[in-house]
């Protein structure tokens, strides 16, 4: 039996120790039975066809395929794309397999946030959070863009040149909307809008769970009085034109104000939740049904100073801010348990005591202005919903990262004064694309 440490166990040598033969065989049988039960392994068939043309030695590495799968699926998308896929053909085909990409997405957590400044130079950036620091890198795009939404590593944007040209309402029909995956460098153009004369609007991107298709949703006010709004949708890679979602008319007028704001997208749902609007509206992107329920702003019975809704991990989360005795500020963090029934659960209380020396050190120059304490605005949850990022909305300054599990706090980077013209969203690179991966095929027959 092979004693070498990296010996293959995919086909354990026939048991040579005679006494143990029966049990060993049984163990092997059990092992195989175990494999067959494991639902995670979907790529075997795909793999074996990819390898069938190769000489045996070069395509059978020392690790069984399912273990390679287990390891690769835990690597960040940028490592897979920039390095791991060059290891060998087997790894390349595994990384490009739709099952792998889906499983990788399912496991991945937003490791940082996507930033686009609203002023020159507009460069889109990705801030990846470590334990005590953050690395900010530029995100590659083929031309200047204005980000509108993100979802599963995809970015919805319009070409920047359109906006900088003529920002008049009537010219908006000329804008080109696109969706890109900046890691794998693919971009697709969204069919042009046929609607004209809308007043306010927002674009968002979401995922239809069972079909695994991505849809762009366009919400717009059809006249200046805010009385009417409509919702249009287009399925990427499939639809030629936008279509109207018809059931949006069932909402009373009070909701319509909410639709002026850009929704948040997560797990196949869009969420319209803004400041202290008493209601949250969700859209199940797959069934195209709307749901409505009270926001925690109603549940906590007033007394708060501000309310912010953000995506935390895989669900909507609401942060309600209160000011305590002088120098003390706290946030209640509520998570939405079910996007259809609207059940909320209070999970954490974040408390900052600015009188403490330790927090004075962390917040250094930030606390000089009296207004600052109410101007702390949470902008994104990252790292599996463990870290919340804040900015101070009334002054130029760094971002503040706070870990709700460890209480660890640090600051990094800086944002300009006018924070409302920023785009911020929790983000992670992914390998996702709209159409099945266009795999490079091995053309030669069994050489």
């Amino acid at each position, binding site marked *: *039996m092979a*004693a070498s*440490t*990296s*010996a293959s*166990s995919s086909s*354990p*040598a026939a*048991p040579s120790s005679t*006494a*143990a033969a*029966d*049990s*060993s065989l*049984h*163990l*092997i049988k*059990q*092992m195989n*039975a*175990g494999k067959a039960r494991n639902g995670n392994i979907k790529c075997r068939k795909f793999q074996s066809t990819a390898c069938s043309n*190769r000489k045996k*030695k*070069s395509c059978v*590495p*020392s*690790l*069984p395929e*399912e*273990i*390679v799968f*287990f*390891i*690769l699926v*835990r*690597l*960040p998308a940028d*490592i897979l794309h920039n*390095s*791991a*896929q*060059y*290891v*060998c*053909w*087997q*790894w390349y085909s595994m990384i490009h397999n739709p099952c792998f990409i889906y499983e990788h997405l399912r496991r991945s957590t937003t490791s940082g946030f996507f930033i686009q400044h609203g002023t020159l130079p507009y460069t889109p950036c990705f801030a990846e959070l470590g334990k005590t620091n953050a690395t900010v890198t530029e995100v590659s795009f*083929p031309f200047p863009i204005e980000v509108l939404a993100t979802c599963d590593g995809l970015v919805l944007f319009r070409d920047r040149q359109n906006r900088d040209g003529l920002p008049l309402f009537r010219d908006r029909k000329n804008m080109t909307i696109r969706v890109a995956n900046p890691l*794998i*460098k*693919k*971009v*697709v*153009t969204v*069919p042009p809008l046929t609607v004209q004369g809308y007043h306010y609007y927002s674009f968002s991107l979401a995922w239809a769970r069972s079909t695994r298709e991505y849809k762009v949703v366009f919400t717009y006010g059809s006249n200046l009085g805010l009385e009417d709004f409509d919702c249009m949708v287009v399925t990427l*890679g499939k*639809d*030629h034109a936008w279509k109207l979602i018809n059931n949006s008319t069932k909402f009373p007028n009070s909701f319509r104000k909410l639709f002026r704001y850009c929704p948040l997208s997560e797990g196949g749902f869009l969420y319209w939740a803004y400041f202290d609007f008493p209601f949250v509206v969700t859209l199940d992107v797959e069934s195209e049904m709307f749901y409505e329920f009270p926001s925690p702003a109603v549940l906590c019975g007033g007394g708060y100073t501000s309310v912010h809704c953000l995506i935390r991990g895989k669900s909507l989360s609401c942060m309600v801010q209160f000011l305590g005795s002088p120098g003390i500020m706290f946030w209640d963090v509520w998570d939405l348990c079910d996007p259809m029934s609207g059940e909320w659960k209070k999970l954490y209380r974040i408390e900052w005591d600015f009188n403490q020396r330790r927090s004075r050190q962390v917040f250094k120059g930030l606390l000089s202005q009296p207004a600052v304490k109410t101007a702390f605005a949470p902008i994104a949850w990252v790292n599996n919903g463990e870290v919340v990022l804040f900015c101070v909305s009334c002054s130029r300054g760094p971002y503040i990262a706070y870990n709700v599990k460890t209480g660890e706090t640090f600051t990094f980077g800086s944002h300009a004064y006018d924070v409302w013209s920023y785009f911020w969203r929790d983000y992670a690179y992914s390998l996702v694309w709209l*159409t099945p991966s266009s795999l*490079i095929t091995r053309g030669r027959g069994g050489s």
Partner: protein
Amino acid sequence: MASAPENEKNASAPEKKTLTLKSMINNEEFVVDEHVALQSVTIKNMVDSDCAGDVIPVPTISGEILALVIEYCKNHANPSASEDDLKKADAGIVAKDIYTLIDLVLAANFLDIKGLLEVTSQKIADSIKDLPHQDVREIFGVENDYTPEEEAAVRAEHDWAFEGFP
């Protein structure tokens, strides 16, 4: 066949039952409590179907690795261990060099111990994350089987590709 011995076991086992696991690589033997060993689905299936003798031979796993596996199983069989304790203990078990980790992941896969498979895979992923792909090849004993044309084609995927709507 499985149900009759089941009753017998329950009746006659107020004292702890033990199993002996034997590494077939260096013949090292480990005596472990049955409930500890049963975290391995492979071993559990053997015991359930009454195929386990007094000594269970474990092929392809060295004594050194088997000791780590048993340590993991002992930690996770302890009902009073908190989640944090387990996390710390797991981190200790996988704080090994990459080659030991590869043996460990193979063992976890062979013995079908889901938790150990997960922590070890994660640790391997963390260890190779920042290595150039040439080093990764060496570690995994993988040959570069790309033809130059194929490699060029894969690299060409690093240019932006535009698609129109259907």
